[in-house]
């Protein structure tokens, strides 16, 4: 082992530099705030909600039961109460109706607009892209108030005097419309950037072979942006499950919307209006499980579609 002294010194310096990179405390310091915040405001509330969901209040002590109520173990009774409450399933069903109308509509129109923006010799592209993106800057509550006045018979410019936008059937389309209006532009921009990132020589070759603009859009561009469409679908499904702002804001105008109209409204009513934080926690947790499960399913379906396309 006859290593010359300078060489050894050099190796040592290198090792030290290497160690410094591996052992520097900077990355830990940088990541710490995120981890602490995640633990305090995401993980801890979730665990606390799970904990609450297994408890209920029991009034103990005193012959007349006048002692202070105490939290006692409830087992699965809160979950059984949630799952056996028909109103819970009704709220899920209403949300499902909105998702079944809204998610395909969002994806269809976002894709249509994205492909139209990318079409050759289409005009007014810059203006229309901004215009369709505009509603994204409008908060859901404000969008609901805005559309609320458009629906309201007294002020409606779109025939609210003849069409009952707040009727028991119409309300589903009215709520969905507000939600789609708010997100279609954002999804369009995501899909448009996906189309723009495709190599242009793909279309030139097809064009030389005599493919029409429509054929290029449907047969080449559409399959190639399938991964981005999957992501848009995932966002839309998760968005549908979290529906709250639009129906809550339209509620003062529309009698058809009850205080438990969609699942998240039911959780709010349970926990903050009826002060049943235990039942509310159980419902919350059931919903979180449902959302995560659905997100995984959409992701798997999307991957399968993408996998099939690329074969």
């Amino acid at each position, binding site marked *: 082992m006859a290593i010359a002294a300078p060489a050894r010194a050099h190796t040592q310096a290198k090792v030290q530099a290497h160690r*410094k990179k591996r052992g*520097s405390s*900077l*990355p830990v310091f*940088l*990541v710490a*705030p*995120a*981890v602490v*915040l*995640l633990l305090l*405001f*995401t993980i*801890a*509330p*979730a665990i*606390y*909600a799970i904990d*609450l969901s297994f408890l209920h209040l029991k009034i103990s002590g005193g012959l007349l039961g006048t002692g202070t109520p105490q939290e006692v173990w409830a087992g699965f009774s809160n979950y059984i109460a949630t799952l056996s409450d028909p109103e819970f399933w009704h709220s899920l069903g209403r949300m499902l109706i909105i998702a079944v109308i809204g998610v395909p509509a969002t994806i269809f129109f976002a894709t249509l607009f994205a*492909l*139209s923006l990318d079409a050759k*010799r*289409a*005009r007014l592209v810059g203006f*229309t892209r901004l215009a*369709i993106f*505009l509603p*994204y*800057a409008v*908060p*859901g509550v*404000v969008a609901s*108030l805005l*559309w*609320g*006045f*458009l629906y309201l018979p*007294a*002020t409606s*410019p779109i025939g609210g005097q003849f069409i009952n936008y707040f009727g028991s059937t119409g309300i589903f389309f009215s709520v969905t419309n507000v939600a789609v*209006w708010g997100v*279609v*532009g954002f999804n369009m*921009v995501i899909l448009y*950037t996906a189309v723009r*990132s495709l190599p242009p020589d793909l279309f030139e070759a097809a064009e030389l072979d005599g493919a*029409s603009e429509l054929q290029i859009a449907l047969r080449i561009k559409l399959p190639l942006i399938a991964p*981005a469409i999957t*992501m848009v679908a995932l966002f839309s499904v998760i968005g549908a*499950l979290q529906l709250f*702002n639009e129906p809550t*804001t339209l509620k003062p105008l529309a009698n058809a919307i009850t205080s438990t109209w969609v699942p*998240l409204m039911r959780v*709010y009513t349970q*926990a903050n209006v009826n002060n049943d934080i235990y039942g*509310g926690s159980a419902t*919350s947790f059931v919903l*979180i499980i449902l*959302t*995560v499960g659905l997100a995984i399913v959409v992701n798997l379906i999307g991957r399968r579609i993408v996998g099939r396309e690329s074969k």
Partner: protein
Amino acid sequence: MTSIQLRGRLKRAGEHTPGSTRTVNWVPTIILIIGALYCVLPVLWILIASTKTNDQLFSTATFLPSFTGGFWTNMQALFSYNHGIFGQWALNSVIYAVGGGVLSTIVAGAAGYALGKYRFFGSKWIFRLIVAAVLLPQIMLAIPQFLLLAKFGMTNNYASVILPQLVSPFAIYLCKIYAEAAVPDEIMEAARIDGGSEWRIFWSVGSRLMMPALVTVFLLQFIGIWNNFLLPFVMLNSDQLYPLTLGLYGLMIITGGQAAQYSIVIAGVLVSIVPLAILFLSLQRYWKIDLISGGVKI
């Protein structure tokens, strides 16, 4: 303008097949115009409605504005409503969105840089935790967050609205992906050989190269917080702390039964749309939305 039109005409004259002329491709253009009308007309209608007094709102033609001074009357009524509380709501929205947006971008940028450019004890597991948390619906956590903070008596203040929105797993994920692609190891190594400390490399090299991602994350967070309704809805009791969304909702609840107050709500809707719309349409070219669709291009 005329020369372009002329050239178009000349070219059209020179071509034979009608399907492949170099003129306007009408089908996508018309689709886009219909889409744009659908998105813009409701806002335009609110603008028109805000020029009308309450009586005119129900009596005049719906798509015709009124020039009898109704606009200023409505604005005065809005800003003097309940001792000018609307201005306070607007200020609160700015505090929540700017404060929360800046802080959460710093948190996400720092964590993304650390996870993207370093391997350290637990880094893999932290990243896995963050990816898992992306799937967790943040809005559904609002009520558990409220219950936990209420247990410690920490609700009904600015912090109770800002703190839960400071960490966005999706933002951290974007920053990590971007840092990996945009901050080359070679530059960091060169800076190290020049004697730069890790902290300095982060501050003067890493954070600069990550700027496009940071701007995008800030705008996404800003909009997310500005639009958030459920979290302030459960956290706040006193209307002095309300953001615009919650304030307008309250106004609608109060005035819901009385058509006499609609013009105030309509003015409030307009005022809360226009500044944000101008801000975002003017900032649009700084957005790197392709980050979201997964294609990182620098």
